[in-house]
Structure formats: C-alpha cells, structure tokens
C-alpha cells in the first residue's frame, strides 16, 4: 500500500466549498452531478479524451499513462436559494434536485435549471427517478409521482424519508416511520409494516427483496412476493448506505468499521454477515457495489475511499483520508467510473477501467496493488 491512491493517478477532484449532499450519474454514464449544501449542483463531464490511460502490459500487469490535458472542469448551477436535499438522474437526461425551497429543479447537463414542480413550505428531502421514466418526490407525508401521462399523489402515514423505484420502474417504495409503503402502478398502496424509523432503501436487482436502513442500527427487509420479514441487525452505527451486488448475491452496507455484506442469494437464514476490506478508526459512511463485478467501493468517515471484495480483507486505496466524511459514492452505470463527494466539499471522479482489475486470466476480478506495477 505504498503507491499513491488511484485518484491521484486516474482521476480529478475539485471543491466549491459546499458539503456534498448527494451524487448521481446520468443514465448515459457520461456526466456526474453533485448536489451541494449551498444549493448548487456541480456537473462534471467525464469525457476526458487525453486523460490518464491504463494499458495492459504484454507480460502481465498494467501500465498507467498520465493525462496529457487537465480534466474537463465542472459546471456550477444554482438550483435552490437554500440547500439541496436530494438528487436523482432523470431518464430524459439531466438531473432532478430537491431543495428546502420546496422546488424540484430539472437541470440539463449543460443548461439552465428549470422548476419542474413546487410544494411551497416543504423540504423535498427525497427524490427518485427510474431509468424507465417515472419520477417521484416527497415533501412531508405527501408523495408525488409523475408518470408518462399524468401525476399522482398519495399520503403516507409519516414523513417520507427515502424513495426508490423497483428495478422495473413499476413500483415506488416509500420509507417512513413504521415501515415502507409500496405504491405500484394502477394499484392501491400496500403497507409493509415494521416498527421503527426507516431511513434508506435498496431493491435487490431482481426486485424480489426490498431492504430498509433503520435508525435503530439495523436493517429490515421484506420478500416482496409474500411480505415475509427479514431482520438484519447488530450494527454499531446506523446503516444508511445500502447497495446490492450487481448479481443480487449480497447486500453491502455502511454502519460498521468495515463494509458489511449480507448474503441474499440464497438468503441465508441465521448466518451472520461478513465484513470485508479494511477496518478504519473511522466507520464506513458509504458503500457502492460495482454494477458488473463483485467489487465494493467503500467511503469512510475520515474521507478515505477503498475498493474491496466480499469475503476478502485486502483493499485498494482510491483516495486517502481527508476532506471530511465521504457523504456520497457511486459507480457510473457501466462501472467504468467512480464518483465521490465529501463533507468538506471535495468532489471528484476517477476512471477505473476493467483492465485494472484483471489479474492474469479469467473473468474473476481481484484488485491488487501488483497489477499496477
């Protein structure tokens, strides 16, 4: 672990001196947006023609070739007079941002923000968009969904804390105190009740499971088919960052000193979760599973970002400590890039081409520092 973090060699970062609240990748993967605490959106074009390259060496391993030009600079768009609270990538391109001004703002990747909806007096702290088109936002107990031809509204029993569309885009899950409400197309809302304060959501990629991160240092999951409960607990902290593996075999979460992985396929009854990667003095604040490989990016409260694999202890440094807690972390849809944002306002991205993880032959990826020599 003596070489420089990957970010220094393969990426770029900036700061607008506003804590990063959330980040999202556009659905075509070319653009990353960062919602900032001062009401701005930072939009970064990640096409970097003369950027750093990773080339396979004939004898094995890879060579890193430095950039010939600086990375494209981020745009800064003013979205809300106060603060950004939530962000999602819109299916039409561009991004939706929710603010404390009660507005949902649509920001095209290069253009002027425009107001898409307004709920006066409410903080819009949850927004979701499905790549299939529908959009949703929540202010207080009221949840709004905008489909292809119409908008609909429902009230949930308590303030909505998180929204997530099922992978097929047909069902919106709404987290709140007391459980989750499922709002499917052309159907009455269905309640998945479980006492406690539910604050984060993740669908399994096949849509069979829904898991909520709870204030009570636990997760609670449901099997959608029959509403069966799954209790996953024992965290030292609140697991509010949840990410399913691309193949649905495990769910990775924050909430502990290392990323915590629960086996889901098959769902293992009473088996304890396994932890992977390095334990920092600071706990994990964010996790994001690679969309194509068995690889987890983990952000820590001290600002470090690591790559690790379930069941393995070693890790690869993407970014060293500093810049405040990692508040947001996400892979681009093709897995070629990773973006992050921190509490002190540092945001950036790096390219992580597949060649980097290919050790010797075979499809199984195993990140190790040796491949970089």
């Amino acid at each position: 672990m003596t070489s420089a973090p990957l970010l220094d060699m393969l990426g770029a970062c900036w700061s607008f001196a506003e804590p990063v609240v959330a980040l999202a990748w556009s659905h075509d993967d070319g653009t990353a947006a960062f919602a900032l605490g001062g009401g701005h959106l930072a939009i970064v074009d990640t096409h970097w023609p003369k950027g750093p390259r990773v080339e396979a060496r004939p004898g094995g391993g890879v060579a890193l070739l430095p950039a010939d030009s600086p990375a494209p600079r981020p745009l800064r768009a003013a979205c809300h007079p106060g603060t950004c609270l939530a962000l999602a990538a819109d299916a039409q391109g561009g991004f939706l941002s929710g603010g404390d001004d009660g507005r949902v703002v649509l920001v095209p990747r290069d253009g002027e923000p425009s107001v898409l909806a307004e709920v006066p007096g409410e903080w819009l702290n949850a927004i979701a968009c499905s790549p299939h088109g529908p959009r949703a936002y929540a202010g207080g107990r009221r949840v709004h969904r905008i489909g292809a031809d119409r908008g609909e509204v429902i009230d949930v029993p308590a303030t909505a804390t998180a929204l997530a569309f099922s992978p097929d885009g047909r069902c919106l899950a709404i987290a709140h105190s007391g459980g989750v409400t499922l709002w499917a197309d052309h159907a009455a809302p269905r309640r998945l009740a479980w006492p406690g304060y539910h604050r984060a959501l993740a669908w399994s990629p096949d849509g069979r499971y829904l898991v909520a991160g709870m204030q009570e240092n636990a997760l609670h999951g449901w099997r959608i088919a029959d509403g069966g409960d799954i209790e996953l607990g024992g965290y030292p902290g609140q697991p509010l960052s949840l990410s399913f593996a691309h193949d649905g075999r495990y769910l990775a979460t924050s909430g502990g000193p290392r990323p915590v992985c629960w086996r889901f396929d098959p769902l293992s009854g009473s088996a304890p979760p396994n932890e992977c990667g390095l334990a920092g003095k600071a706990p994990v604040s964010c996790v994001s599973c690679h969309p194509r490989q068995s690889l987890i990016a983990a952000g820590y409260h001290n600002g470090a970002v690591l790559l690790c694999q379930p069941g393995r202890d070693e890790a690869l440094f993407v970014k060293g400590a500093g810049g405040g807690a990692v508040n947001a972390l996400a892979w681009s849809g093709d897995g070629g890039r990773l973006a992050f944002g921190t509490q002190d306002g540092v945001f950036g991205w790096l390219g992580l081409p597949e060649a980097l993880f290919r050790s010797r032959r075979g499809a199984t990826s195993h990140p190790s520092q040796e491949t970089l020599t």
Partner: protein
Amino acid sequence: MALIPVTVLTGFLGAGKTTLLNRLLRGAEGRRYAVIVNEYGELGIDGALVVGANEEVYELNNGCVCCKLRGDLVRVAGNLVRRPGGFDGILIETTGLADPAPVVQTFFFDDLLRQHTRLDSVICVADARHLAAQLREMPEAAGQIAQADLVLLNKADLAHADTLAEAERAVLGLNPTAELVRAVRGDIPLDRLLDRGAFDIARLRVPVPRLGAARVGRAPHVYVPLDAGRHASGIASVSLSFERPLERSRFLPWLQRLVVERGADLLRAKGIVAFDGEPRRFVFQAVHMTVDSGLDRHWAPSESKASRLVFIGRGLDADELREELTHCLADVCETSAS
C-alpha cells in the same frame, strides 16, 4: 472540527420562550444561528436561519418504550450540518406541552448529529406566577423541569414574593441539579444561556444535597432524602450522598439494571461517584434508558470523596434506592447485606 452547540428551549405557552429566543438572537453579534421552531411568524431576526418543523415523535424499535426520537430533527438538523460555513449554534424551540426527552435522545442516538453537534443545554422558561400550580397539575411541566439544566423563572416582577419562593422550592424539589434564575422578559446575560455544557459529563452539576434530617441506615452512611419534591404528577426527585466509596463491580450492574427496568419512569439521573481504589471521579447521566458515563478528572486532594446522585422520576422510592445503593458500598459485604 468544532461541534455545533445545540440549545433547547422548553416551557409552556406564554412563559416567554419566544421573547428569550429573540433576545438570544439579538445578542448574537455576528454569530450565526439556525433556529428550529414550530410556529413561524413570530420571529424577526436578521442573520439567523429559521426553519419551521412539525414535531414528529417516534418510538424507536429497540425494545424500550421510553426511547423516542424527533424524526423532524433528524432530518432538519441533519441537513443543517451540511450547509456551507456551518453555524455557531442551533436553537430548538419546542411546543408548550412537548416532552424535551425525545429531543435530548435524538442528539444521543443519531450518528450524524453526534458527529457534528453537541447538546449544550435544555432551558425551561416558566411563568413564575403559575409554575407551582402547573407542577401540581400538569405532568408535562414536571417533565420539562426534570430535563432542564437551567430554569428561568420569567415574569418575576409580576409574581408575589411568596409565589416566587414557592415556585423556586418546587423546582429545586423536583430537579435539584437545575440552576434557577429569576428573570423579567427573558432578561438574562447571554453567557448564562450559552455554552453551558450541561450534557458534558466533565461539567456535570450535582449539588450536595441540602441537609435535612439525616438518618442512619443498616450500614453506617449518610443519605439525605428530599421529601419536598413529590407532586400530583407523581414525579419526584431523590438525592443521595455517600461519603464512603462504592464498589464499581456492584454499582455499574446496578445502574444498568435500574435504567433497563425503570427507564420508562426514570426521567433523568445524574451522579458523581467515588469508586474504591479509583483516583478519578466516575460521572454518569441518564435520560430514561439512555446513559452517558465515564471516568472524569482526579478527585482533588482538598475535595471530600463523596458520591452524589440525583434521580428524577415517577414513583421512585427513596428508601429503596438508598438501600440498593448501600449494597454497592465498597465496605459492605455483599452477602451480609442481602
């Protein structure tokens, strides 16, 4: 990174909370505050961010009915710490009848808030003319006094001397750890309101019980029950003092059991404890089942190494607590005491 101090203002409608809040903000002098209030419109403050929030009190699903959380504060305060430049303080005004305990517990339970904020003080603003009667009749008033580290007896100029004295007796009987200040229209020096560190266990205030009729129990020790604190609401305080050290291996499990078994009725507990063979003070405080504790500074050579404990709650039995704690004294043999 400095933690943002959080000040909670409680008190019945009409006691003068908003006046005090305005006073705090007017005297802020370049400091930047965020204010979380329930009612909009009464505040006209430059430089402060005012956020309206509906009090959402949720029970936590952790096996404890007394562990409650303010969901709105988790969201609102959780976002305030994400604003550029930060704040010099967060002020929270609760509604008239609200129980401040869930506010306190929210700042203990939430990881993000613990990393960025520190609860500095719970200030109860009371109308000096009505407080004694409210304490007799309204359990909410007792709950607010129990959680407060500063009680502002407001409108003191309008109250008779007897009424004032009765109010003061009632407050100290209920919460002997509270600092009591008479005020007129919330007029009190700002440095007495801010940076109180009331939840900093190193700065915990546990007064020596006022000497009443000391009795001697089965094991020789000194304890002073305070009888004046019982109210119609059933909420009362018990202050105990022990001049001889306690045995850590018996006291800690006892405290744990107390908060687990009686957490729902135990509104507040504080203590500075001398352990046998331990040169440092052991300090604890609890709000229901939520306990914060640790070893603090060394006992000073000039200081009497006496343990002082205060319990505020519903249906607490002073004799029973004293008896149980007697069994935790280091020089009381466990078997003979049972």
